[in-house]
Protein backbone atom coordinates (compact mmCIF):
# COMPACT_ATOMS: atom_id res chain seq x y z
CA UNK A 1 0.00 0.00 0.00
CA UNK A 2 2.68 2.45 1.12
CA UNK A 3 4.92 1.27 -1.71
CA UNK A 4 2.24 1.99 -4.24
CA UNK A 5 1.62 5.44 -2.80
CA UNK A 6 5.34 6.10 -2.97
CA UNK A 7 5.46 5.20 -6.64
CA UNK A 8 2.51 7.43 -7.46
CA UNK A 9 3.96 10.32 -5.49
CA UNK A 10 7.41 9.96 -7.01
CA UNK A 11 5.90 10.09 -10.49
CA UNK A 12 3.63 12.99 -9.56
CA UNK A 13 6.40 15.11 -8.08
CA UNK A 14 8.65 14.46 -11.06
CA UNK A 15 5.83 15.47 -13.41
CA UNK A 16 5.26 18.65 -11.41
CA UNK A 17 8.93 19.60 -11.56
CA UNK A 18 9.15 18.84 -15.29
CA UNK A 19 6.09 20.99 -15.91
CA UNK A 20 7.62 23.69 -13.71
CA UNK A 21 10.86 23.64 -15.72
CA UNK A 22 8.84 23.94 -18.92
CA UNK A 23 6.98 26.87 -17.36
CA UNK A 24 10.25 28.62 -16.53
CA UNK A 25 11.49 28.19 -20.09
CA UNK A 26 8.16 29.42 -21.49
CA UNK A 27 8.29 32.43 -19.19
CA UNK A 28 11.80 33.26 -20.45
CA UNK A 29 10.56 33.03 -24.03
CA UNK A 30 7.58 35.30 -23.32
CA UNK A 31 9.65 38.09 -21.74
CA UNK A 32 12.30 37.69 -24.44
CA UNK A 33 9.55 38.01 -27.02
CA UNK A 34 8.31 41.16 -25.29
CA UNK A 35 11.72 42.86 -25.66
CA UNK A 36 12.15 41.55 -29.19
CA UNK A 37 8.66 42.74 -30.10
CA UNK A 38 9.28 46.23 -28.76
CA UNK A 39 12.51 46.85 -30.66
CA UNK A 40 12.18 44.72 -33.75
CA UNK A 41 8.46 44.62 -34.42
CA UNK A 42 7.77 48.09 -33.06
CA UNK A 43 5.16 46.92 -30.58
CA UNK A 44 5.22 44.51 -27.69
CA UNK A 45 2.33 42.20 -26.93
CA UNK A 46 0.17 43.61 -24.15
CA UNK A 47 -0.53 40.20 -22.67
CA UNK A 48 3.12 39.18 -22.28
CA UNK A 49 3.94 40.45 -18.81
CA UNK A 50 0.70 39.31 -17.20
CA UNK A 51 0.88 35.92 -18.90
CA UNK A 52 4.47 35.39 -17.69
CA UNK A 53 3.49 36.35 -14.15
CA UNK A 54 0.51 33.97 -14.15
CA UNK A 55 2.78 31.21 -15.41
CA UNK A 56 5.24 31.96 -12.62
CA UNK A 57 2.55 31.78 -9.91
CA UNK A 58 1.49 28.40 -11.27
CA UNK A 59 4.91 26.79 -11.47
CA UNK A 60 6.06 28.22 -8.15
CA UNK A 61 3.13 26.68 -6.28
CA UNK A 62 3.30 23.37 -8.13
CA UNK A 63 7.06 22.99 -7.76
CA UNK A 64 6.71 24.06 -4.12
CA UNK A 65 4.25 21.18 -3.62
CA UNK A 66 6.75 18.77 -5.17
CA UNK A 67 9.36 20.29 -2.87
CA UNK A 68 7.43 19.05 0.15
CA UNK A 69 7.94 15.50 -1.02
CA UNK A 70 11.50 15.99 -2.29
CA UNK A 71 12.44 17.88 0.86
CA UNK A 72 14.14 20.81 -0.87
CA UNK A 73 12.45 23.53 1.20
CA UNK A 74 14.92 25.23 3.49
CA UNK A 75 14.46 24.40 7.18
CA UNK A 76 16.32 24.45 10.48
CA UNK A 77 18.11 21.15 11.10
CA UNK A 78 19.89 22.21 14.29
CA UNK A 79 17.70 20.47 16.86
CA UNK A 80 16.89 17.52 14.66
CA UNK A 81 20.57 16.70 14.23
CA UNK A 82 21.09 16.63 18.01
CA UNK A 83 18.30 14.14 18.73
CA UNK A 84 18.36 10.36 19.04
CA UNK A 85 16.57 8.47 16.23
CA UNK A 86 13.31 7.90 18.12
CA UNK A 87 12.55 11.46 19.27
CA UNK A 88 13.83 12.69 15.93
CA UNK A 89 11.21 10.57 14.18
CA UNK A 90 8.48 11.91 16.44
CA UNK A 91 9.58 15.45 15.73
CA UNK A 92 9.59 14.83 12.00
CA UNK A 93 6.11 13.37 12.34
CA UNK A 94 4.93 16.55 14.07
CA UNK A 95 6.59 18.73 11.42
CA UNK A 96 4.99 16.76 8.61
CA UNK A 97 1.56 17.07 10.23
CA UNK A 98 2.01 20.85 10.41
CA UNK A 99 2.97 20.99 6.71
CA UNK A 100 -0.01 18.81 5.80
CA UNK A 101 -2.36 21.01 7.82
CA UNK A 102 -0.96 24.15 6.16
CA UNK A 103 -1.55 22.47 2.78
CA UNK A 104 -5.11 21.65 3.77
CA UNK A 105 -5.70 25.25 4.86
CA UNK A 106 -4.27 26.46 1.55
CA UNK A 107 -6.68 24.13 -0.26
CA UNK A 108 -9.72 25.37 1.67
CA UNK A 109 -9.14 29.10 2.07
CA UNK A 110 -7.12 29.37 -1.13
CA UNK A 111 -10.24 27.94 -2.75
CA UNK A 112 -12.30 30.67 -1.13
CA UNK A 113 -9.87 33.24 -2.55
CA UNK A 114 -10.33 31.79 -6.03
CA UNK A 115 -14.11 31.93 -5.68
CA UNK A 116 -13.92 35.56 -4.55
CA UNK A 117 -11.62 36.69 -7.36
CA UNK A 118 -13.32 34.73 -10.14
CA UNK A 119 -15.34 37.77 -11.18
CA UNK A 120 -12.27 40.08 -11.41
CA UNK A 121 -11.04 39.97 -14.97
CA UNK A 122 -7.36 40.68 -15.72
CA UNK A 123 -7.80 43.21 -18.57
CA UNK A 124 -4.71 42.34 -20.63
CA UNK A 125 -5.45 38.62 -20.54
CA UNK A 126 -9.24 38.55 -20.51
CA UNK A 127 -9.03 35.86 -17.85
CA UNK A 128 -10.38 35.93 -14.29
CA UNK A 129 -7.76 36.69 -11.64
CA UNK A 130 -9.01 33.56 -9.95
CA UNK A 131 -7.34 31.54 -12.72
CA UNK A 132 -3.93 32.78 -11.58
CA UNK A 133 -4.77 32.06 -7.95
CA UNK A 134 -6.18 28.61 -8.70
CA UNK A 135 -2.60 27.40 -8.25
CA UNK A 136 -2.89 27.96 -4.47
CA UNK A 137 -5.73 25.53 -3.64
CA UNK A 138 -4.45 22.96 -6.14
CA UNK A 139 -0.99 23.15 -4.62
CA UNK A 140 -2.58 22.87 -1.17
CA UNK A 141 -4.32 19.65 -2.14
CA UNK A 142 -1.08 18.23 -3.53
CA UNK A 143 0.87 19.22 -0.41
CA UNK A 144 -1.71 17.57 1.86
CA UNK A 145 -1.60 14.49 -0.34
CA UNK A 146 2.21 14.27 -0.35
CA UNK A 147 2.38 14.57 3.43
CA UNK A 148 0.22 11.42 3.78
CA UNK A 149 3.18 9.44 2.45
CA UNK A 150 5.65 11.25 4.71
CA UNK A 151 3.46 10.80 7.78
CA UNK A 152 2.86 7.11 7.01
CA UNK A 153 6.62 6.58 6.74
CA UNK A 154 7.28 8.36 10.03
CA UNK A 155 4.61 6.24 11.70
CA UNK A 156 6.05 3.05 10.21
CA UNK A 157 9.48 4.01 11.50
CA UNK A 158 11.12 4.38 8.09
CA UNK A 159 13.23 7.28 6.89
CA UNK A 160 10.79 9.43 4.98
CA UNK A 161 11.28 10.44 1.37
CA UNK A 162 12.24 13.98 2.29
CA UNK A 163 14.82 13.01 4.93
CA UNK A 164 18.31 14.38 4.31
CA UNK A 165 20.25 11.55 2.73
CA UNK A 166 16.98 9.76 2.03
CA UNK A 167 16.08 8.41 -1.38
CA UNK A 168 15.01 11.77 -2.74
CA UNK A 169 17.74 13.92 -1.24
Amino acid at each position, binding site marked *: MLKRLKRINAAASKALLDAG*AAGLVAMTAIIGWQVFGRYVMGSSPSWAEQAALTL*MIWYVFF*AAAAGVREGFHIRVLLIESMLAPRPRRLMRLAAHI*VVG*AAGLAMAIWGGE*LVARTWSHVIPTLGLPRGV*AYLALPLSGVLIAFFTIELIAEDAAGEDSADAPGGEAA
Partner: protein
Amino acid sequence: MELAVLLLTLTVLLAIGVPVAFALIGSTLAAFLVMDIPLVVMFQRMAAGISVFTLMAIPFFIFAGDLMYRAGIAARLVQVAEAVFGRTRGGLGQVNIGASMMFGAVSGSPIASASAIGSTMIPLMKEKGYGADYAVNVTVTAAIAGLLIPPSHNMIIYSAASGMGVSISDLFLAGIIPGILTGFLLSLTAWLVAIRRGYPKGVFPGWRPFALAFVAAIPGLMTAIIIMGGILSGIFTPTESSAIAVIYTILVGTLVYRTLGWTEFKGAALQSVKTAAMVLLIIAAATGFGFALAVLEVPAAMASMIGFLTDNPIFILLIVNVILLLLGTFMDMAPLIVITTPIFLPILMPLGIDPVHFGIIMMLNLGIGLVTPPVGSVLFVGSAIGKIPMEQSVRTIWPFYLAMIVSLMLISYIPELSLALPRWFA
Protein backbone atom coordinates in the same frame (compact mmCIF):
# COMPACT_ATOMS: atom_id res chain seq x y z
CA MET B 1 -1.00 38.20 23.48
CA GLU B 2 -1.74 37.79 19.77
CA LEU B 3 1.84 38.76 19.03
CA ALA B 4 3.05 36.12 21.48
CA VAL B 5 0.99 33.49 19.63
CA LEU B 6 2.51 34.58 16.32
CA LEU B 7 6.13 34.64 17.46
CA LEU B 8 6.00 31.59 19.74
CA THR B 9 4.31 29.44 17.11
CA LEU B 10 6.90 30.55 14.56
CA THR B 11 9.76 29.70 16.92
CA VAL B 12 8.38 26.29 17.83
CA LEU B 13 7.59 25.37 14.24
CA LEU B 14 11.06 26.42 13.05
CA ALA B 15 12.67 24.54 15.92
CA ILE B 16 10.94 21.25 15.14
CA GLY B 17 12.13 21.49 11.57
CA VAL B 18 9.04 22.69 9.71
CA PRO B 19 10.28 24.31 6.46
CA VAL B 20 10.55 28.11 6.83
CA ALA B 21 7.72 28.85 4.36
CA PHE B 22 5.30 26.54 6.15
CA ALA B 23 6.34 27.79 9.58
CA LEU B 24 5.47 31.31 8.41
CA ILE B 25 2.10 30.14 7.05
CA GLY B 26 1.28 28.06 10.15
CA SER B 27 2.16 30.76 12.67
CA THR B 28 0.26 33.46 10.77
CA LEU B 29 -2.82 31.24 10.54
CA ALA B 30 -2.60 30.54 14.28
CA ALA B 31 -2.39 34.27 15.02
CA PHE B 32 -5.29 35.02 12.66
CA LEU B 33 -7.43 32.47 14.51
CA VAL B 34 -6.76 34.23 17.82
CA MET B 35 -7.26 37.66 16.23
CA ASP B 36 -10.53 36.68 14.55
CA ILE B 37 -9.20 37.54 11.11
CA PRO B 38 -10.68 35.33 8.34
CA LEU B 39 -8.06 32.81 7.20
CA VAL B 40 -8.65 33.62 3.56
CA VAL B 41 -6.79 36.88 4.22
CA MET B 42 -3.54 34.93 4.65
CA PHE B 43 -3.83 33.40 1.19
CA GLN B 44 -4.97 36.66 -0.32
CA ARG B 45 -1.78 38.29 1.07
CA MET B 46 0.34 35.42 -0.22
CA ALA B 47 -1.19 35.71 -3.67
CA ALA B 48 -0.66 39.49 -3.65
CA GLY B 49 2.90 39.05 -2.38
CA ILE B 50 3.89 36.91 -5.33
CA SER B 51 1.88 38.80 -7.99
CA VAL B 52 4.60 41.40 -8.47
CA PHE B 53 6.08 41.87 -11.93
CA THR B 54 9.58 42.73 -10.74
CA LEU B 55 9.81 39.47 -8.78
CA MET B 56 9.95 37.60 -12.08
CA ALA B 57 13.61 38.59 -12.13
CA ILE B 58 14.28 36.09 -9.33
CA PRO B 59 13.69 32.88 -11.32
CA PHE B 60 15.45 34.46 -14.30
CA PHE B 61 18.60 35.38 -12.38
CA ILE B 62 18.68 31.97 -10.70
CA PHE B 63 18.26 30.27 -14.09
CA ALA B 64 20.92 32.43 -15.73
CA GLY B 65 23.37 31.73 -12.91
CA ASP B 66 22.86 27.98 -13.16
CA LEU B 67 23.27 28.05 -16.94
CA MET B 68 26.49 30.08 -16.61
CA TYR B 69 27.88 27.44 -14.31
CA ARG B 70 26.90 24.52 -16.55
CA ALA B 71 28.12 26.29 -19.70
CA GLY B 72 31.56 26.70 -18.14
CA ILE B 73 31.41 30.49 -17.88
CA ALA B 74 32.29 30.30 -14.18
CA ALA B 75 35.32 28.11 -14.96
CA ARG B 76 36.57 30.65 -17.52
CA LEU B 77 36.24 33.47 -15.01
CA VAL B 78 38.35 31.38 -12.63
CA GLN B 79 41.07 31.17 -15.29
CA VAL B 80 41.17 34.93 -15.67
CA ALA B 81 41.34 35.39 -11.92
CA GLU B 82 44.10 32.80 -11.74
CA ALA B 83 46.21 34.70 -14.25
CA VAL B 84 45.71 37.95 -12.35
CA PHE B 85 45.93 36.94 -8.70
CA GLY B 86 47.71 33.57 -8.80
CA ARG B 87 51.12 34.97 -7.83
CA THR B 88 50.27 36.19 -4.34
CA ARG B 89 50.72 34.21 -1.12
CA GLY B 90 47.78 31.86 -0.83
CA GLY B 91 47.06 32.80 -4.43
CA LEU B 92 44.12 30.45 -4.92
CA GLY B 93 42.23 32.24 -2.13
CA GLN B 94 42.66 35.50 -4.06
CA VAL B 95 41.70 33.75 -7.29
CA ASN B 96 38.55 32.51 -5.61
CA ILE B 97 37.56 35.99 -4.42
CA GLY B 98 38.35 37.59 -7.78
CA ALA B 99 36.32 34.99 -9.64
CA SER B 100 33.40 35.35 -7.20
CA MET B 101 33.35 39.12 -7.72
CA MET B 102 33.33 38.68 -11.50
CA PHE B 103 30.63 36.05 -11.21
CA GLY B 104 28.68 38.42 -8.94
CA ALA B 105 28.70 40.91 -11.80
CA VAL B 106 27.07 38.47 -14.20
CA SER B 107 24.80 36.58 -11.81
CA GLY B 108 22.18 37.80 -9.38
CA SER B 109 22.10 34.96 -6.88
CA PRO B 110 24.64 34.31 -4.09
CA ILE B 111 23.72 30.61 -3.95
CA ALA B 112 24.41 30.26 -7.68
CA SER B 113 27.73 32.03 -7.13
CA ALA B 114 28.80 29.84 -4.22
CA SER B 115 27.95 26.65 -6.10
CA ALA B 116 29.41 27.79 -9.42
CA ILE B 117 32.73 29.15 -8.13
CA GLY B 118 32.87 26.69 -5.23
CA SER B 119 32.56 23.58 -7.34
CA THR B 120 35.51 24.74 -9.43
CA MET B 121 37.69 26.32 -6.73
CA ILE B 122 37.14 24.23 -3.58
CA PRO B 123 38.33 20.87 -5.02
CA LEU B 124 41.26 22.68 -6.69
CA MET B 125 42.27 24.39 -3.46
CA LYS B 126 42.04 21.16 -1.48
CA GLU B 127 44.18 19.40 -4.06
CA LYS B 128 46.89 22.10 -3.78
CA GLY B 129 47.08 21.67 -0.02
CA TYR B 130 44.77 24.41 1.21
CA GLY B 131 42.55 23.51 4.18
CA ALA B 132 39.01 22.59 3.22
CA ASP B 133 37.74 25.01 5.89
CA TYR B 134 39.73 27.87 4.34
CA ALA B 135 38.50 27.02 0.85
CA VAL B 136 34.87 26.96 2.02
CA ASN B 137 35.20 30.14 4.10
CA VAL B 138 36.70 32.11 1.23
CA THR B 139 34.09 30.83 -1.24
CA VAL B 140 31.00 31.55 0.84
CA THR B 141 32.07 34.98 2.09
CA ALA B 142 33.20 36.06 -1.39
CA ALA B 143 29.75 35.09 -2.66
CA ILE B 144 28.34 37.67 -0.22
CA ALA B 145 30.60 40.38 -1.66
CA GLY B 146 29.31 39.27 -5.07
CA LEU B 147 25.75 39.68 -3.77
CA LEU B 148 26.35 43.43 -3.49
CA ILE B 149 27.68 43.68 -7.02
CA PRO B 150 24.82 44.13 -9.50
CA PRO B 151 22.70 42.43 -10.63
CA SER B 152 21.18 41.11 -7.44
CA HIS B 153 17.81 39.49 -7.04
CA ASN B 154 17.75 40.35 -3.34
CA MET B 155 17.79 44.06 -4.24
CA ILE B 156 14.69 43.42 -6.34
CA ILE B 157 12.97 41.84 -3.34
CA TYR B 158 13.94 44.90 -1.28
CA SER B 159 12.57 47.27 -3.90
CA ALA B 160 9.27 45.37 -3.91
CA ALA B 161 9.16 45.19 -0.09
CA SER B 162 9.81 48.92 0.37
CA GLY B 163 6.30 49.58 -0.95
CA MET B 164 7.51 52.85 -2.45
CA GLY B 165 9.27 51.62 -5.53
CA VAL B 166 12.87 52.30 -4.54
CA SER B 167 14.61 52.37 -7.93
CA ILE B 168 16.19 49.03 -8.81
CA SER B 169 18.78 50.65 -11.05
CA ASP B 170 19.79 53.01 -8.20
CA LEU B 171 20.16 50.00 -5.90
CA PHE B 172 22.22 48.16 -8.51
CA LEU B 173 24.55 51.14 -8.93
CA ALA B 174 24.75 51.70 -5.19
CA GLY B 175 26.00 48.16 -4.60
CA ILE B 176 29.12 48.43 -6.77
CA ILE B 177 31.50 50.30 -4.43
CA PRO B 178 30.35 48.49 -1.25
CA GLY B 179 30.75 45.19 -3.12
CA ILE B 180 34.30 46.00 -4.18
CA LEU B 181 35.12 47.28 -0.68
CA THR B 182 33.83 44.08 0.91
CA GLY B 183 35.72 41.99 -1.62
CA PHE B 184 38.91 43.93 -0.89
CA LEU B 185 38.60 43.47 2.88
CA LEU B 186 37.93 39.75 2.39
CA SER B 187 40.93 39.41 0.11
CA LEU B 188 43.12 41.17 2.69
CA THR B 189 41.83 38.74 5.32
CA ALA B 190 42.39 35.73 3.08
CA TRP B 191 45.96 36.91 2.45
CA LEU B 192 46.72 37.34 6.17
CA VAL B 193 45.29 33.92 7.01
CA ALA B 194 47.28 32.41 4.13
CA ILE B 195 50.51 33.90 5.50
CA ARG B 196 49.79 32.51 8.97
CA ARG B 197 49.09 29.09 7.56
CA GLY B 198 52.04 29.21 5.16
CA TYR B 199 50.04 28.54 2.01
CA PRO B 200 51.97 28.37 -1.28
CA LYS B 201 52.52 31.12 -3.83
CA GLY B 202 51.38 30.49 -7.35
CA VAL B 203 53.38 31.39 -10.45
CA PHE B 204 52.43 33.98 -13.04
CA PRO B 205 51.61 32.07 -16.21
CA GLY B 206 52.93 34.86 -18.46
CA TRP B 207 51.11 37.42 -20.54
CA ARG B 208 50.10 35.12 -23.36
CA PRO B 209 48.08 32.65 -21.24
CA PHE B 210 46.62 35.64 -19.43
CA ALA B 211 45.47 37.21 -22.68
CA LEU B 212 44.07 33.89 -23.88
CA ALA B 213 42.14 33.35 -20.66
CA PHE B 214 40.79 36.86 -20.83
CA VAL B 215 39.65 36.55 -24.43
CA ALA B 216 37.99 33.23 -23.66
CA ALA B 217 36.06 34.84 -20.79
CA ILE B 218 34.90 37.90 -22.73
CA PRO B 219 31.60 36.42 -23.99
CA GLY B 220 30.70 35.56 -20.39
CA LEU B 221 31.81 38.90 -18.99
CA MET B 222 29.72 40.66 -21.64
CA THR B 223 26.64 39.58 -19.66
CA ALA B 224 27.51 42.20 -17.05
CA ILE B 225 27.68 44.92 -19.67
CA ILE B 226 24.45 43.81 -21.32
CA ILE B 227 22.56 43.77 -18.01
CA MET B 228 23.83 47.05 -16.55
CA GLY B 229 24.11 48.81 -19.91
CA GLY B 230 20.61 47.76 -20.88
CA ILE B 231 19.11 48.91 -17.60
CA LEU B 232 20.99 52.23 -17.36
CA SER B 233 20.28 53.22 -20.96
CA GLY B 234 16.63 52.34 -20.50
CA ILE B 235 16.66 49.72 -23.26
CA PHE B 236 15.03 47.28 -20.91
CA THR B 237 13.72 47.03 -17.36
CA PRO B 238 15.64 45.11 -14.67
CA THR B 239 13.16 42.25 -15.02
CA GLU B 240 13.62 42.13 -18.77
CA SER B 241 17.39 42.32 -18.34
CA SER B 242 17.26 39.14 -16.27
CA ALA B 243 15.36 37.29 -19.01
CA ILE B 244 17.82 38.63 -21.58
CA ALA B 245 20.67 37.32 -19.41
CA VAL B 246 19.13 33.84 -19.63
CA ILE B 247 18.73 34.02 -23.39
CA TYR B 248 22.23 35.48 -23.89
CA THR B 249 23.77 32.76 -21.73
CA ILE B 250 21.96 30.08 -23.75
CA LEU B 251 23.32 31.64 -26.97
CA VAL B 252 26.89 31.87 -25.63
CA GLY B 253 26.71 28.33 -24.23
CA THR B 254 25.39 26.76 -27.41
CA LEU B 255 26.93 28.87 -30.19
CA VAL B 256 30.21 30.23 -28.78
CA TYR B 257 31.44 27.81 -26.11
CA ARG B 258 29.42 24.86 -27.40
CA THR B 259 29.33 23.47 -23.87
CA LEU B 260 25.61 23.73 -23.27
CA GLY B 261 23.76 20.66 -24.49
CA TRP B 262 20.24 19.45 -23.87
CA THR B 263 21.25 17.60 -20.66
CA GLU B 264 22.86 20.71 -19.16
CA PHE B 265 19.93 22.88 -20.24
CA LYS B 266 17.32 20.56 -18.76
CA GLY B 267 19.33 20.14 -15.58
CA ALA B 268 19.61 23.90 -15.16
CA ALA B 269 15.88 24.46 -15.75
CA LEU B 270 14.93 21.76 -13.21
CA GLN B 271 17.35 22.95 -10.56
CA SER B 272 16.32 26.58 -11.06
CA VAL B 273 12.63 25.81 -10.74
CA LYS B 274 13.30 24.14 -7.40
CA THR B 275 15.34 27.06 -6.07
CA ALA B 276 12.91 29.67 -7.44
CA ALA B 277 9.87 27.86 -6.02
CA MET B 278 11.53 27.65 -2.62
CA VAL B 279 12.51 31.34 -2.57
CA LEU B 280 9.23 32.66 -3.96
CA LEU B 281 7.03 30.53 -1.69
CA ILE B 282 8.95 31.97 1.26
CA ILE B 283 8.44 35.50 -0.08
CA ALA B 284 4.70 34.87 -0.46
CA ALA B 285 4.44 33.41 3.04
CA ALA B 286 6.54 36.23 4.51
CA THR B 287 4.19 38.77 2.96
CA GLY B 288 1.32 37.23 4.94
CA PHE B 289 3.41 37.10 8.10
CA GLY B 290 4.41 40.74 7.62
CA PHE B 291 0.75 41.66 7.28
CA ALA B 292 0.04 40.04 10.66
CA LEU B 293 2.86 42.09 12.19
CA ALA B 294 1.42 45.25 10.65
CA VAL B 295 -2.08 44.53 12.00
CA LEU B 296 -0.53 44.01 15.43
CA GLU B 297 1.14 47.41 15.03
CA VAL B 298 4.60 45.98 15.50
CA PRO B 299 6.26 48.58 13.24
CA ALA B 300 4.89 51.41 15.40
CA ALA B 301 5.82 49.63 18.61
CA MET B 302 9.35 49.01 17.33
CA ALA B 303 9.65 52.67 16.34
CA SER B 304 8.60 53.96 19.75
CA MET B 305 10.80 51.42 21.51
CA ILE B 306 13.87 52.48 19.56
CA GLY B 307 12.83 56.12 19.94
CA PHE B 308 12.65 55.57 23.69
CA LEU B 309 16.21 54.26 23.77
CA THR B 310 17.82 56.98 21.69
CA ASP B 311 17.18 59.57 19.02
CA ASN B 312 20.75 59.56 17.77
CA PRO B 313 20.81 58.27 14.17
CA ILE B 314 24.22 56.66 14.70
CA PHE B 315 22.93 54.53 17.58
CA ILE B 316 19.64 53.78 15.84
CA LEU B 317 21.50 52.49 12.79
CA LEU B 318 23.64 50.40 15.13
CA ILE B 319 20.57 48.96 16.89
CA VAL B 320 18.90 48.14 13.57
CA ASN B 321 22.10 46.47 12.35
CA VAL B 322 22.39 44.36 15.49
CA ILE B 323 18.73 43.28 15.28
CA LEU B 324 19.10 42.33 11.61
CA LEU B 325 22.34 40.43 12.26
CA LEU B 326 20.65 38.44 15.05
CA LEU B 327 17.57 37.70 12.95
CA GLY B 328 19.81 36.78 10.02
CA THR B 329 21.47 33.96 11.91
CA PHE B 330 18.29 31.91 12.11
CA MET B 331 16.19 33.18 9.22
CA ASP B 332 16.83 33.25 5.51
CA MET B 333 17.49 36.48 3.64
CA ALA B 334 14.36 36.74 1.46
CA PRO B 335 11.72 36.52 4.23
CA LEU B 336 13.67 38.93 6.40
CA ILE B 337 13.82 41.52 3.62
CA VAL B 338 10.06 41.18 3.14
CA ILE B 339 9.25 41.28 6.87
CA THR B 340 11.71 43.85 8.23
CA THR B 341 11.84 46.44 5.43
CA PRO B 342 8.38 47.87 6.22
CA ILE B 343 9.33 47.94 9.92
CA PHE B 344 12.70 49.69 9.72
CA LEU B 345 12.41 51.92 6.66
CA PRO B 346 9.75 54.19 8.28
CA ILE B 347 11.99 54.54 11.35
CA LEU B 348 15.13 55.39 9.38
CA MET B 349 13.81 57.65 6.64
CA PRO B 350 12.75 60.51 8.95
CA LEU B 351 16.33 60.50 10.26
CA GLY B 352 17.53 61.34 6.78
CA ILE B 353 18.74 57.86 5.85
CA ASP B 354 18.26 57.29 2.14
CA PRO B 355 16.21 54.17 1.29
CA VAL B 356 18.82 53.20 -1.32
CA HIS B 357 21.57 53.47 1.31
CA PHE B 358 19.56 51.39 3.78
CA GLY B 359 18.94 48.81 1.06
CA ILE B 360 22.68 48.27 0.65
CA ILE B 361 23.19 48.07 4.43
CA MET B 362 20.46 45.45 4.56
CA MET B 363 21.94 43.45 1.69
CA LEU B 364 25.33 43.07 3.38
CA ASN B 365 23.84 42.64 6.84
CA LEU B 366 21.43 39.88 5.87
CA GLY B 367 24.07 38.53 3.49
CA ILE B 368 26.26 37.86 6.53
CA GLY B 369 23.29 35.87 7.85
CA LEU B 370 23.57 33.62 4.79
CA VAL B 371 26.97 32.41 6.02
CA THR B 372 26.15 32.02 9.73
CA PRO B 373 24.70 28.91 11.36
CA PRO B 374 22.17 27.56 12.20
CA VAL B 375 20.42 28.75 9.03
CA GLY B 376 22.82 29.91 6.37
CA SER B 377 21.96 28.68 2.91
CA VAL B 378 25.20 29.84 1.26
CA LEU B 379 27.37 28.37 4.03
CA PHE B 380 25.37 25.18 3.68
CA VAL B 381 26.00 24.97 -0.07
CA GLY B 382 29.71 25.75 0.38
CA SER B 383 30.24 23.16 3.11
CA ALA B 384 28.43 20.55 1.02
CA ILE B 385 30.80 21.18 -1.90
CA GLY B 386 33.82 21.14 0.43
CA LYS B 387 32.51 17.88 1.94
CA ILE B 388 33.02 19.13 5.49
CA PRO B 389 30.44 19.67 8.24
CA MET B 390 29.24 23.26 8.61
CA GLU B 391 30.65 23.35 12.18
CA GLN B 392 34.14 22.68 10.86
CA SER B 393 34.16 25.59 8.45
CA VAL B 394 32.61 27.92 11.01
CA ARG B 395 35.35 27.20 13.53
CA THR B 396 37.88 29.18 11.46
CA ILE B 397 35.58 31.64 9.68
CA TRP B 398 35.91 34.39 12.35
CA PRO B 399 38.46 36.58 10.54
CA PHE B 400 36.13 36.66 7.54
CA TYR B 401 33.11 37.57 9.69
CA LEU B 402 35.22 40.37 11.15
CA ALA B 403 36.09 41.69 7.69
CA MET B 404 32.42 41.72 6.70
CA ILE B 405 31.39 43.46 9.93
CA VAL B 406 34.05 46.14 9.37
CA SER B 407 32.72 46.58 5.86
CA LEU B 408 29.15 46.75 7.19
CA MET B 409 30.11 49.52 9.62
CA LEU B 410 31.91 51.49 6.91
CA ILE B 411 28.93 51.14 4.58
CA SER B 412 26.47 52.06 7.35
CA TYR B 413 28.27 55.23 8.40
CA ILE B 414 29.64 56.47 5.09
CA PRO B 415 26.50 56.88 2.94
CA GLU B 416 28.60 58.20 0.04
CA LEU B 417 30.03 54.72 -0.52
CA SER B 418 26.54 53.68 -1.62
CA LEU B 419 25.09 56.92 -2.90
CA ALA B 420 27.94 58.40 -4.95
CA LEU B 421 27.38 56.27 -8.06
CA PRO B 422 23.57 56.58 -8.26
CA ARG B 423 23.97 60.36 -7.85
CA TRP B 424 26.63 60.50 -10.52
CA PHE B 425 24.42 58.66 -12.99
CA ALA B 426 21.25 60.57 -12.06
